[in-house]
């Protein structure tokens, strides 16, 4: 089903990156195994410009399995407050505390599996609080199944072979991901090939994954949910 595409052939479609204060919502990202770093990079690229700090809450298991954010590689303009907790209940409390503080740019949570603390009710609370305070909340659900949830946007992300490196043909270039919006309240679901340009621009270009735009048209009206 999935094909690599030539960017000149297809109609390039760039998702509007909403400013974090304007349309801040609760979003979930489900990385494929091995794409945990890609999910974090995608989330950080979605935050947009600014110098407001980020609260990053990590499960201890996540940290042991997939590492911790590494500042020299991220190249952020903002400061990063890292919190490492071991109980999912504590994590949800900490997220809620973080969402009260309007000075934050976003709260990013990395949690592993499907613990009972991350229930539909808990997610609903987070979603309401996010929309009340205007601080974006991103949940990166590692090794989890996409069960019932109140998240406004749900993404799935996988790694793709990187773009050609202009300096060295044998070296990996800009990272590329396959990004899929599987459920959204106010956007049309779809699948894209994302190319992350790091450095001064630090932006993610999203190019429709299907050259004929079949999915985009078949997906129906805005607001329809695609269950996978």
């Amino acid at each position, binding site marked *: 089903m999935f094909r690599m595409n030539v960017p000149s052939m297809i109609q390039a479609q760039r998702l509007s990156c909403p400013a974090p204060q304007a349309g801040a919502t609760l979003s979930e990202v489900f990385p494929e195994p091995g794409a945990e770093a890609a999910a974090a990079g995608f989330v950080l690229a979605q935050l947009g410009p600014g110098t407001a700090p980020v609260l990053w809450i990590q499960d201890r298991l996540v940290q042991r399995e997939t590492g911790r954010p590494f*500042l020299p590689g991220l190249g952020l303009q903002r400061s990063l*407050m890292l919190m490492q907790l071991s109980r999912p209940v504590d994590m949800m409390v900490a997220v809620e505390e973080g969402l009260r503080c309007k000075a934050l740019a976003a709260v990013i949570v990395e949690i592993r599996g499907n613990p009972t603390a991350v229930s539909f009710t808990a997610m609903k609370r987070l979603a309401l609080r996010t929309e009340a305070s205007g601080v974006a909340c991103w949940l990166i659900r590692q090794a989890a199944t996409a069960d019932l949830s109140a998240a406004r946007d749900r993404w799935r992300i996988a790694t793709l072979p*990187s773009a050609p490196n202009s300096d060295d043909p*044998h*070296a990996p270039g800009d990272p590329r991901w396959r990004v899929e919006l599987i459920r959204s309240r106010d956007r049309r679901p779809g699948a894209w090939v994302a190319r992350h340009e790091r450095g001064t621009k630090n932006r993610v270009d999203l190019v429709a994954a299907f050259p004929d735009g079949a999915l985009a048209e078949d997906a129906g009206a805005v607001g329809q949910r695609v269950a996978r």
Partner: protein
Amino acid sequence: MQERSGNALPDDLPQALSVEGTHGPVIHAVNRMAQMAGVTTGARVADMRALCPELRVDHADCDGDRAALERLALWARRWCPWTVAEGGTDGDCGLILDTTGSDHLWGGEAEMLAQMEADLSMLGLSSRLALAPTWGAAWALARFGPVRAICSDTACLPVAALRLDGETVLLLNRLGLRTVGQLADLPRLSLARRFARAAPTRTPLTRLDQMSGHLPEPVSPPEAPPVFRADARLAEPIFDPTHHLPDLCAALCDQLARTHQGARRLRLTVYRTDGEVSRIEAACALPSRDPAHLAFLFRDRLEKIDPGFGFDLISVEAPVTEALGTQQADLAGRTDAGLELSQLVDRLTARFGRNVLIQLQPAASHIPERAEARVAPLTEAPVIRPVQAERPQRLLDHPEEVHVLYAVPEGPPAQFQWRRRSYRVARYQGPERIAPEWWHDKPGTRLRDYFKIEDEAGHRFWLYREGLQGDGRGGIPRWFLHGVFD
């Protein structure tokens, strides 16, 4: 003052503290055993080690001693209201108490001195006490007089008892003047002329006058730090202190606002009717006197107190405060972002403990695991030139060894196994050689050659080979996975 809490050695081992002198470390203070072995204050550590090979030498913490002495001076106000810590950086420190009019409360002067010695020994401090009409005489008797001397004769004391510096004492001794009495018998005019060049407060004549009381030397104690504390005394015992907390915090904040202070530490103490006392402590990242915020810091922690038969006294105090001016909200009624952030840090720290929340900060090092420092939140980041080479977005806490399935002579392995899954390298970039930091690392630490590799499915890893073949620092170089690119 010589022993630091926690690591005091037994008294029967010779021990000394040292400070840095002009020609290497010199002895600052000794214990009794070292004194008996012949170790003298002011001598060089190397010489004293030759004299007493089993001497144990530690570095002296002069600033800490000074701070402890000032706390002790406040503690000593139980005997009289005028206490002052005297002595400078030279280590010859002591306490001066103006006990005029307060000795009868302790049953006389001799009983008061005995009581003081007993109380100080309860703190683990040995003391030498003396009572005299003037500061100078008390200083001299405490150091050179008999035990617990009360208004003894000072004429037979050596001239060093006059609080003179070493050169002046040496000169007086060379002139044949050994005791205070001999010095006092000299004509004042010739004594003044002989020491005309010395600083006027430190001449033997001034010191003699101060000792005899001809020159006044009053004791002017420093102000004790104010105590910020709000109490609620209850007629009937209660089981839940939550409802009293907002009022107590408001009263505390009123006290703080009067002196333009903000609380950095808070302590809630509840006294049970059966005499049990429990405490809860909280801390603020920035000084604060917002009653709602201070009350919030205790919110979920009151449940952990065992109420027993109820509480009848609740008190909130701020042991550590900092200056905080009055603040104005802007016209829209918003407060600034820094304040909100610090309140978030307080809430998270109060709930989850101090070490859970950290801020990541770049540090000046080429070794990847040292290029990132963990500091307390809300710390200003230092300006550090970032590394130009590409770094992964995630770093494993400990590099994990990979099992090389198919090695090639140049570059990274063509195929390797990590966490029981095998990866085939499609593209790679590198090597980037990072040499060990010889000023930190153990000798024999091997260099690392880092490669950014990508497999066919697009997983991008940061691998390194530790060491080189035949570098004389171990066997065959091993491969490790250290980070993941996004």
